[in-house]
């Protein structure tokens, strides 16, 4: 990939195990993510991909293992703490604020960066207003970037699916995350929408220098855009490496195509 420089390790996941009752969703998973990298997590359905993202994002607390983000070992963390630390995410099944406009949805992404208090906002003090304008400017930049200018004021619930996915990405980008987790950003899209989304993901990585971890089912997409790939199957890691390495790994081929017993 072009002028992008892959940097130091930004996220290290070490020996993570997560179970729900008797179901072992993740078993001793370790991998790392380097700065500015696009890292894909692939695997058959139920392999534990979303669970893995949920662990990084603080939705689930793993029973075992250690997560190091930007050189700091994390203790217990909920999604709000993760967001505050610079981890943004999008959702597999959309979780947008449907009744609110595109603009308002994306402005909520700026929430963490707003410094003025409730009271000064309530009485509409000058500095609270200026702050709002500054954030608005940033969000407009992202709206331009994602080419959704025309839908600014539209309630998100009325937009077609492909555009909603874009708003979801936009809301996460508004947080200016250092690490962006994308849970199947292209699921359910037609070819054209997929190509658009691919372009946005690559441009995000390029322009904002955001490190990206994404889950995707479309092998073509994964092999095209990611730098390195982790392969999960039944909660275990069965492959890790560049797209080419993963493609030629016997374990991965077996998991996807099945093995003769």
């Amino acid at each position: 990939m072009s002028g992008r420089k892959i940097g130091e390790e930004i996220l290290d996941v070490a020996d993570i195990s997560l179970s729900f009752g008797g179901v072992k969703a993740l078993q001793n998973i370790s991998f790392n993510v380097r700065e500015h990298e696009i890292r894909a997590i692939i695997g058959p359905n139920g392999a534990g991909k979303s669970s893995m993202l949920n662990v990084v994002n603080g939705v689930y607390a793993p029973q075992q293992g250690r997560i190091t983000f930007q050189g700091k070992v994390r203790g217990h963390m909920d999604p709000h703490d993760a967001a505050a630390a610079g981890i943004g995410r999008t959702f597999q099944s959309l979780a947008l604020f449907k009744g609110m406009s595109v603009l308002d949805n994306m402005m909520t992404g700026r929430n963490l960066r707003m410094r003025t208090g409730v009271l000064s906002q309530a009485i509409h003090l000058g500095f609270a207003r200026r702050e709002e304008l500054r954030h608005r400017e940033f969000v407009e930049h992202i709206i331009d970037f994602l080419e959704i200018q025309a839908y600014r004021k539209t309630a998100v619930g009325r937009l077609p699916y492909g555009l909603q996915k874009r708003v979801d990405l936009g809301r996460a980008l508004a947080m200016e995350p250092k690490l962006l987790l994308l849970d199947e950003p292209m699921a359910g899209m037609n070819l054209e929408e997929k190509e658009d989304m691919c372009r946005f993901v690559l441009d995000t990585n390029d322009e904002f220098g955001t490190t990206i971890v994404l889950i995707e089912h479309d092998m073509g997409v994964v092999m095209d855009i990611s730098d390195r790939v982790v392969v999960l199957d039944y909660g275990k890691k069965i492959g890790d490496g560049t797209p080419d390495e993963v493609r030629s790994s016997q374990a991965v081929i077996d998991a996807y195509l099945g093995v003769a017993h």
Partner: protein
Amino acid sequence: MTLANLQRNWPVVALIVALLVGAAAPLALGMSAPGFYFEVLLGGLMSGVLYSLVALGFVLIFKASGVFNFAQGAMVLFAALSLARLSEHMPLAVAFICAVAIMAVLAWVIERLVLRHLVNQDAVVLLMATLGVTYFLDGFGQLAWGSDIYTINTGLPKTPVMVLERVFEGGILINTEDFVAAAVAALLVLALALFFQKTPTGRALRAVADDHQAAQSIGIPLSRIWVIVWTVAGFVALVAGMVWGSKLGVQFSLSLIAMKALPVVILGGFTSVPGAIIGGLIIGVGEKFAEVFLGPIMVKQFDLAGGGIENWFAYVLALVFLLVRPEGLFGEKHIDRV
């Protein structure tokens, strides 16, 4: 509204027309003197304002957290009790500020002990939790502040004033206190509407209402938002409690007023601040008119023992609204993509 729109919404239009006709009929048919008619109208509007205030508390919490807060009535009682008992020892203004602080602490405690543990649970679970809060508050309020009837003296003149004597024969009798109450309510509503629509915190509140989990993952602190919204609802409860309490005295029956606010939110829509206001006014005026004008006719026609329409009119109206427009007059219609 376009013609096609009108055609689609004809049941709502018909209902509104029926209400307007019902409201105008007594005057048009010469059933009452204009002076008396307007007195009843004003009386209805005044009690409507009070219903609105309680309904507003419901709407605020529902909007911001998707919780139907059954405890709103108990909060009104608790706030009024605090204010009444505190004002025995200090000037009303100071007592009011202390009561605001008490409601803020209460909001914090409710978040800490109840809501925090129920994040992402079903709406029914949260409803049950607020039911628990209701009983606790009813009991705790009386334990802490006593269970007699207390008064709140706002210092406003309670004597009725005669206005418009030149226009109608006999003029109209109104209460200064009622007018002040209406003005306070109007101001409160305006401020809240602006707060929700125009401030970043208001936006965050709406975001939390829409989707807890998504709001959390973009870094909106759920716990702080909930404390803020319960505090605001507590403040509204305090204003409502003060107005009701100074009119009727502070007593246990205050908490039952919440039951009257229920039809109001059904009418106005659970998510609409203006809806709570207009719904309150419609119910307030509607039940007074029903009692004063419709009651005697029904008693005569059907040879009933007595009227008492005032007590059930609101619920019947709410029921009709549920049939023709379940989301209420101003509520958000859910758009689901299938």
